[in-house]
């Protein structure tokens, strides 16, 4: 049984269907990249996987000992956060909220976990700093550390490298690869098809045409070749 199995899933808002007939599964240790054009429904899919919104039809099953609240999530940034007075330590610690159950305060174990994950992401020296004053790359590390507090099993990352410069982007990818090697399953949305091809084990392409399979299958498929060509063209023109 895989961690997450999706069958005949359709998603969208109200009556408007964004994507339909999705079938895929994610097993322990996988590194799944979700690619597709802007507006093809990648973020919507991720929110549906997290049960933040209802699917229009179809099923999402979790298995292999994965509980629904054991998923770490790194969202695309929201507006509220931009002027929010919160220290890095407070934000990372809030990743532990799923572990508390009915207990109102964080215990020592959870504070220790937050500290560990800050070390892992190399942001220990920023612990007392204000989130809104960090650089984009540092902010992403903070949110990643928070996501790591929520899970030891699977991370859902929505465009973790958006707006980062090439050097920081490469560091970010290496961090994520390291986490994957440590046994954490990764589902990542990315526009950067070349990095997807480099790091991912599986690719899910959504849009007018759908594709799900291993990276090798994708690179040899029509849809994969067309998308990569177009992406390269865009890269040169843009």
């Amino acid at each position: 049984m895989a961690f997450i199995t999706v069958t005949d899933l359709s998603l969208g808002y109200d009556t408007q269907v964004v994507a339909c007939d999705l079938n895929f599964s994610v097993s322990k240790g996988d590194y799944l990249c979700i690619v597709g054009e802007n507006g093809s429904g990648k973020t919507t899919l991720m929110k549906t996987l997290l049960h933040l919104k209802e699917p229009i039809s179809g099923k999402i099953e979790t298995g292999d000992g994965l509980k629904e609240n054991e998923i770490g999530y790194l969202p695309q940034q929201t507006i509220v956060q931009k002027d929010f007075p919160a220290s890095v330590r407070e934000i990372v610690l809030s990743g532990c909220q799923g572990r508390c159950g009915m207990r109102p305060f964080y215990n020592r174990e959870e504070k220790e976990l937050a500290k560990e994950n800050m070390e892992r992401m190399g942001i220990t020296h920023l612990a007392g700093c204000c989130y809104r004053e960090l650089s984009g790359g540092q902010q992403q590390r903070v949110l990643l550390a928070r996501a790591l507090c929520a899970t030891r099993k699977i991370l859902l990352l929505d465009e973790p490298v958006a707006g980062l410069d090439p050097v920081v982007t490469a560091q970010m990818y290496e961090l994520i690869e390291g986490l994957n090697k440590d046994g954490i399953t990764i589902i990542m949305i990315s526009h950067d098809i070349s990095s997807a091809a480099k790091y991912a084990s599986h690719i899910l392409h959504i849009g007018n045409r759908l594709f799900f399979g291993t990276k090798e299958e994708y690179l040899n498929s029509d849809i994969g070749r067309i998308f990569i060509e177009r992406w390269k063209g865009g890269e040169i023109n843009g």
Partner: protein
Amino acid sequence: MDKLIVYMQYPFVRYALIVGILIALCSSLLGVTLVLKRFSFIGDGLSHVAFGAMAIAAVFQLTNKMMIILPVTILSAVLLLRTGQNAKIKGDAAIAMISVGALAFGYLIMNIFSTSSNLTGDVCSTLFGSTSILTLTSGEVWVCTILSIVVVLLFVLFYNRIFAVTFDEDFSRSAGTKADAYNLMIAIIIAVIIVLAMNLVGSLLISALVIFPALSSMRLFKSFKSVTICSAILSVVCAFAGIVISILAGTPVGSTIVAADVLVFAICHVLGKIRGV
């Protein structure tokens, strides 16, 4: 100073201080969350709703007006906060709509079915707060004290959750936190505070109590905890100073407290600039 000690012997002065400080404390605790969620004006909007509800209660000549005011206000608060981030009409516009609409309807109803001879006076004292904080009965003080204790307790107990839900609702939900339940709780608490405060100090004041301490402390501090604590302290100090000054100088209570809040905000703003925030 002597004058103050003399005044302190009157129970109505003590009552005013207790109630003023408690309401300042409660509203400032939730103020940080409300400002960050872009609901700064919810105090204004809800107190106008409460005003509208009061007009209806007056028309039906209900003896216990709270029976209508409280549920209507809570309902509006829930609707406003629930629509939240994904709504077609955004928070500020929704509040403005409800606020102006309720005010207009309330005034209209009062005008058509008026039973009071001093209509303008009634309206004015609801909006700007009368001297009613100086005419509190001991029963009202008790109600206020108990509700304040409940609010503070709830806030302390759920502090971590309130922070998490305010900072990132989607993440909280994905981690299994019942974000809707917390939003509902915040909405109910704020509605209760506003109804309470409106009767005692008027609706102009309640908005100021929600907004100013939060904004002032956000100039100075950078973590949620320090901002919350600082805004509670500032709010209480301003309420205390405002009430004392208004008694000594004979100025209107509500306006004096707001003036103190504005002054503190200006000071914090300058301090923040100096520290380079």
